[in-house]
């Protein structure tokens, strides 16, 4: 059977066909759909873990017990899971483990542009890199065979274009794999005495995997039918751009295994062609390897270290003719992403901006509060850093900062790594005010459940962390709950908590307006006889409100009737009953 699947769905299918029985992941664009698609199969176990480190360790446990397992994350998630990763390289596996990591060149939805291939080198693990959906499926299956044959976790590296592009895939059948668990302290207890004996195994394994890379079908030479003046070494989505630009005219060494890299295969390829170009997105990993083994190549001197490639970037580098394009004289205004109409975060941000509060932010939809007109954020670094960061900020700032600084963090991000920062605030007692923006879902990645929602990945009832009890139990005495649709309440509680001389938590609680169970209210309308065009409502940044002919106007197709704008209007111009049209 053939189907049109995004790369991530094809990975999920590959994991499933290979007999993967347990998947544990934390959502992150562009990796989220792997786990979502996998969770649709009912004969396997799937879960969202609180963070990537927990997910990877759960996958390790499953493989130790004898069931093939997987965990998936975005590139920065692998930083969180780096601790188990490096030592799992030493223990190896019982049943196979596949770790899917998705890079985001061009930073469509990420805070940095790091190249995950460095991790494969640093942790001495094999890494496969598919270039389309069929390879995503095939490589996921092959990864388990490599994992068990060479006794190693295997990294499967995706990138945004491969993860989110659909191409045609042939589906196969699932196989069931179970390995016996036997106690083996020398292999699985990584005390220094055991680990020191495992390290030589790791080095030996890399040698064997390098031999495999020389002849594996993962790496292949496609002989060009044109000039052999030059050849190209490439992988992943860059391979597709090379083929788009050159067709079959140029010889290509297409790498599907990016660590360890072959030596003889590269030298043989270089000997057959004149110049050798290495075309890879982000860092010069393949280029550096080629230079280290004495093969003279041209890489980052010609192809950018920044962002995504396309056929155009390759055509330009080779000075192929530009295509003619239309150009307009008018400047087109940018259209940045923004918080939705009725987004509960907006009310709290309005109150913070109005009171000129310094706000340390975190990772999620609420990062959009940094944009005009609210401009509400001062800092965003990584998952959880708002809570840990405000502690240091207030320790340094003391009384100068404590009563005019807060941090904001979503419910899922708080579970991921905010809670440890809050424990530090409680333990080392900084006078910090932490706002948990609890919208009862993981929003930005497309509505995944988390430990605070009370539902599992499949939507079944699950354990539920009570945020108030959790905060109290770690030593925060002052925990308040507000409704971000009520501006006066938010402002009053904010001022009270900032004034206190102790750590405090404000839970700003209202479910994401996009959740299915949240029913929109009737749209508001602006009574033009009352509206005086003061534009106070425009400072709030609601996409439903625009300004036409001297008055505010509500777009009734977008408005969900949250009523926050009505609280801002000094003239009561926002009304809930639209007059009958006669």
């Amino acid at each position, binding site marked *: 059977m053939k189907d049109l699947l995004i790369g991530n769905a094809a990975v999920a299918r590959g994991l499933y066909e290979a007999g993967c029985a347990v998947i544990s992941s934390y959502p992150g664009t562009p990796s989220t759909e792997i786990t979502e698609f996998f969770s649709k199969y009912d004969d396997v176990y799937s879960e969202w873990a609180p963070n990537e480190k927990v997910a990877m360790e759960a996958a390790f446990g499953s493989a130790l017990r004898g069931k093939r397992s997987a965990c998936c994350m975005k590139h920065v998630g692998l930083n969180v899971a780096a601790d188990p990763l490096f030592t799992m390289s030493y223990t190896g596996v019982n049943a196979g483990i596949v770790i899917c990591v998705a890079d985001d060149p061009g930073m469509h939805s990420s805070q940095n542009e790091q190249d995950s291939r460095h991790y494969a080198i640093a942790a001495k693990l094999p890494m496969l890199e598919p270039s389309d959906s069929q390879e995503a499926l095939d490589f996921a299956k092959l990864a388990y065979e490599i994992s068990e044959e060479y006794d190693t976790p295997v990294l499967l590296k995706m990138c945004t274009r491969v993860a*989110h592009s659909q*191409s045609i895939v042939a589906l196969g059948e699932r196989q069931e794999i179970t390995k016996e668990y036997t106690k083996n302290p020398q292999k699985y207890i990584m005390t220094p005495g055991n680990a020191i004996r495992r390290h030589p195994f790791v080095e030996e394994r890399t040698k064997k995997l390098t031999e495999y890379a020389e002849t594996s079908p993962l790496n292949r030479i496609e002989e060009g039918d044109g000039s052999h003046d030059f050849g190209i070494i490439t992988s992943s989505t860059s391979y*597709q751009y090379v083929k788009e630009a050159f067709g079959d005219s140029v010889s290509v060494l297409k790498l599907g295994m990016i660590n360890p890299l072959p030596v003889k295969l590269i030298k043989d390829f270089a000997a057959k062609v004149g110049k050798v170009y290495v075309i890879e997105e982000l860092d010069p990993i393949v280029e550096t390897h080629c230079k280290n083994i004495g093969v003279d190549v041209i890489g980052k001197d010609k192809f950018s270290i920044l962002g995504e490639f396309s056929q155009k970037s390759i055509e330009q580098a080779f000075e192929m003719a530009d295509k003619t394009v239309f150009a307009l004289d008018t400047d087109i205004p940018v259209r940045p992403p923004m918080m939705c109409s009725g987004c509960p975060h907006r009310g709290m941000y309005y109150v913070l901006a109005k009171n000129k509060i310094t706000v340390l932010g975190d990772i999620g939809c609420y990062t959009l509060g940094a944009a005009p007109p609210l401009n509400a954020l001062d800092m965003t670094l990584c998952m959880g850093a708002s809570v840990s960061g405000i502690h240091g900020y207030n320790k340094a700032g003391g009384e100068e900062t404590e009563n005019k600084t807060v941090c904001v963090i979503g419910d899922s991000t708080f579970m991921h790594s905010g809670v440890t920062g809050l424990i530090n605030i409680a333990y080392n007692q900084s006078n910090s005010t932490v706002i948990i923006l609890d919208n009862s879902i993981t929003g930005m990645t497309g509505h995944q459940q988390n430990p605070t929602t009370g539902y599992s990945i499949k939507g079944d009832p699950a354990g539920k962390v009570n945020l108030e009890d959790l905060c109290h139990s770690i030593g925060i005495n002052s925990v308040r709950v507000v409704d971000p649709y009520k501006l006066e309440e938010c402002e009053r509680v904010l001022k009270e908590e900032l004034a206190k001389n102790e750590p405090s938590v404000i839970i700003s609680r209202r479910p994401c307006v996009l959740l299915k169970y949240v029913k929109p209210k009737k749209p508001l309308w602006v009574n033009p006889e009352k509206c005086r065009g003061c534009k106070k409502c425009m400072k709030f940044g609601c996409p439903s409100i625009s300004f036409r002919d001297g008055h505010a106007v509500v777009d009734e197709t977008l408005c969900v009737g949250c009523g926050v704008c009505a609280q801002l209007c000094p003239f009561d111009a926002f009304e809930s009953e639209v007059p009958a049209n006669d």
Partner: protein
Amino acid sequence: MTKNIMIVGVGGQGSLLASKLLGRLLVDEGYDVKVSEVHGMSQRGGSVVTYVRFGDKVYSPVIEDGEADFIVSFEKIEAARYVQNLKKDGIIIVNTQQIDPMPVIIGSATYPADIINEMKSKGIHVDDIDALSMANEAGSSKACNIVLMGRLAKYFDMPKEKWIAAIEKCVKPQFVEINKKAFELGYNC
């Protein structure tokens, strides 16, 4: 020969269903197909773009400057934003709906007043239609995407029935009738 279609609009307008429909149709016709879009941050009311490519063998999932045979735009200035992707003899289908981006809402930029005529004056083949009104006529403003697919179908050498069959496969049963009506309105206007 690979054909290139871009679907552009504002996050939340329903371009996903349009690309799903095209993908289904083209796979059923036996083409090699690639469909590419970016999820995540850009869906929150930002500018969104989907690439659909089909032919005997498709490599790149993206469409670059001067390569699109068709651009289907769900919004006026989004058509203008991506016009450099259009081939010289390409066709751009535009829904004449205006959705103000945040810089316009807060008054730091103005919405271009006459962008459709400017495109036409540059010799661009613009097919502008009021898809929103037709979608409302069909029974839901959300059917705008299928009105535009109906319009696109006019330029394709493919029987209308195949498009209808693809709609039946891609749309939830309770919405099939509205979407079939929306398709006809776009096709016949």
